[in-house]
């Protein structure tokens, strides 16, 4: 160790732990203490031991390990002692500087003059059915308010557990338990049925350039799902895959959207649907997130790469998920045929193919998902 002799070992180690925290590792005071105890146990003279002790106490995900090694090299000088092999590569989730997330065109104040209160039932009804891509900024703002009324219901699945019921199989345990309470006196026959649990919903939102008129509305829809009950996960697809559930998990939709915008690095970029889906399936889906879930893909099916990869990944997705719903904003338009290569490759693996260009179609989507 190259630390100057004027500092005690604890000071050097503590300073290192602080440096790790500054580098973004989840180092808390109790972790620091554990780290010092662990170093004392292996002996501070044992450089390799100290290195491993830090890995075990200061890191908690494979991504932390790389960062830890970098800080270690910087702090103690020289490369970190090699430990087995390099850890897994970081997942494709990255925080990027804020790009402008506001696509709803909440633009100039001069547009405000058209914002007369026309909240009559018929005006709202018309708004519900209009294509979001063709709305004015003022209409979009009114539409945003309509999202509040959207109450997505989670689909359900049968759980392992049973609950009391008036019909169904006889619940022997409950009868015995009650009998026990009455000192063995027999009582009424109880029944139970299988309970149900909310099924996970996974939303994959395409935020590439061709989808940008709808991206804001789709994320608002996703936000309604996230703040509702039941497990929901949201990802954005573009040139890469981004996990935005955490960013959307706040009650205020506008703040949630800004937070999501700050997380998504590839807003309005190109589309690599196949690669994005592959990343989702490898990193999350196959490990359990997509298993038995209702997966909703919001995309127009424009694929920059060839359709083969997309078709293959959709097949994998369909094999894992309970139901795959594809929502295409162009579907609702006159004369639309799913002829884009990507769409054609994906369609055989979708259970539902829905329109998604207006509020009314979003309501239809929530109904289909709730029934799934």
């Amino acid at each position, binding site marked *: 160790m190259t630390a100057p002799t004027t500092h005690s070992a604890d000071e050097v180690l503590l300073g290192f732990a602080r440096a790790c925290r500054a580098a973004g590792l*989840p180092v*808390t005071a*109790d*972790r620091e203490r*554990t780290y010092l*105890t*662990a170093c004392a*146990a*292996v002996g501070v003279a044992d450089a*390799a*031991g100290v290195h*491993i*002790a830090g*890995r*075990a*106490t200061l*890191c*908690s*995900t*494979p991504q932390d*390990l790389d960062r830890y090694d970098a800080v270690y090299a910087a702090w103690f000088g020289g490369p970190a002692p090699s*430990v*087995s*092999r390099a*850890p*897994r590569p970081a997942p494709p989730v990255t925080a990027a500087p804020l790009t402008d997330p506001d696509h709803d065109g909440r633009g100039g104040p001069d547009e405000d003059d058209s914002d007369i209160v026309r909240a009559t039932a018929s005006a709202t009804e018309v708004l519900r059915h209009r294509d979001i891509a063709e709305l004015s900024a003022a209409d979009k703002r009114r539409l945003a308010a309509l999202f509040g009324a959207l109450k997505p219901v989670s689909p359900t699945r049968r*759980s*392992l*557990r049973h609950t009391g019921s008036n019909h169904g199989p006889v619940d022997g*345990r409950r009868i*015995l*338990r009650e*009998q*026990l309470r009455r*000192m*063995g006196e027999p009582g009424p026959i109880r029944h139970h049925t299988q309970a149900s*649990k909310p099924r996970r919903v996974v939303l994959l939102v395409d935020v590439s350039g061709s989808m940008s008129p709808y991206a804001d509305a789709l994320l608002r829809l996703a936000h309604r799902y996230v703040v509702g009950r039941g497990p929901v996960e949201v990802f954005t697809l573009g040139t890469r895959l981004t996990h935005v559930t955490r960013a959307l998990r706040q009650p205020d939709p506008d703040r949630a959207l800004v937070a999501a915008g700050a997380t998504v690095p590839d807003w309005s970029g190109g589309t690599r649907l196949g690669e994005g889906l592959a990343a989702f399936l490898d990193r999350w889906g*196959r*490990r*359990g*997130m997509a298993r038995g879930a209702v997966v909703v893909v919001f995309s127009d099916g424009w694929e920059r790469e060839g359709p083969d990869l997309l078709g293959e990944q959709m097949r*994998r997705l369909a094999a894992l998920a309970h139901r795959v719903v594809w929502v295409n904003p162009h579907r609702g338009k006159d004369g639309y045929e799913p002829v884009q290569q990507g769409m054609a490759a994906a369609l055989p693996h979708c259970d539902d193919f829905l329109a998604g260009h207006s509020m009314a179609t979003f309501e239809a989507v929530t109904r289909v998902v709730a029934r799934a």
Partner: protein
Amino acid sequence: MSDAGAMDPADAFASAADLGARLAETGYVGDDALATVAWLGLRLHRPLLLEGEPGTGKTALAEALAEALDLPLVRLQCYEGIDATQALYDWDFPRQILHLRAVEATAGAGSDLGDVEDSLFDERFLLSRPVLRAVREAPVVLLVDEIDRADDEFEAFLLEVLSTWQVTIPELGTVSATTPPVVVLTSNRTRELHDALKRRCLYHWIDHPGLAREIAIVRSRAPEVGVALAQQVVGLVQRVRAEPGLLKPPGVAETLDWARALAELGAREVDLERAAATLGAAIKYREDALRVREALERILGG
């Protein structure tokens, strides 16, 4: 319980190297980092949180630790919807009813109600589930397998037990462990664990082993496999693992299965025909099998 079991696991090994050597004796071939982390876990009474690809020996480490320490292994397999009654304890209702009937028949109406109730909630009607068993019978090795499959609520419950090593049964009182059990948690990362639980634990990521270590693992776990065969199979698996785009790269467990399968067929060396016939031992997806079969022809044929 044996003599070695009566001593505190914290003092069982003087250094990480000792533990590593003892683990190697039991047939578990790990690297220095793993031995150090495991030894620290014993010393500091901290649970070990092992993450890694499936089939890299996370569960096997707990078994090897139990053998090395000469302690019983208590295993708790987690699954979706697991709750405290499956992890802690439950009352044996049918036996309690029988007991109640027996008391009624023999003692009649004269018996004291309080006594009857006390006798009903006796230890002999208590069904100890893994966590309570680990607390009562400590020192033991408690393996909490695939914690990522359980729910958040269960994780919180586990965190509580892991930090206090106490279990309170309302009818009986509090049970606490004299020496904290050695705890190994494994996770396949299907769900991100809560940070509070991770903070309690020593974290280690188990990666696929390198060539030399994997050969050593095969040799120690499957002695019936010849040296030449083991080297060839491991070399093959390592190249297959490096193959891009596999849905599920084979883990060490698959290497072992494959080597055993080939040894069972009487193979001394890997040839294309036998390798293709036994591929199912290592590769579990059809798409992967097609890809690997092509690669096999390239590697073995060329």
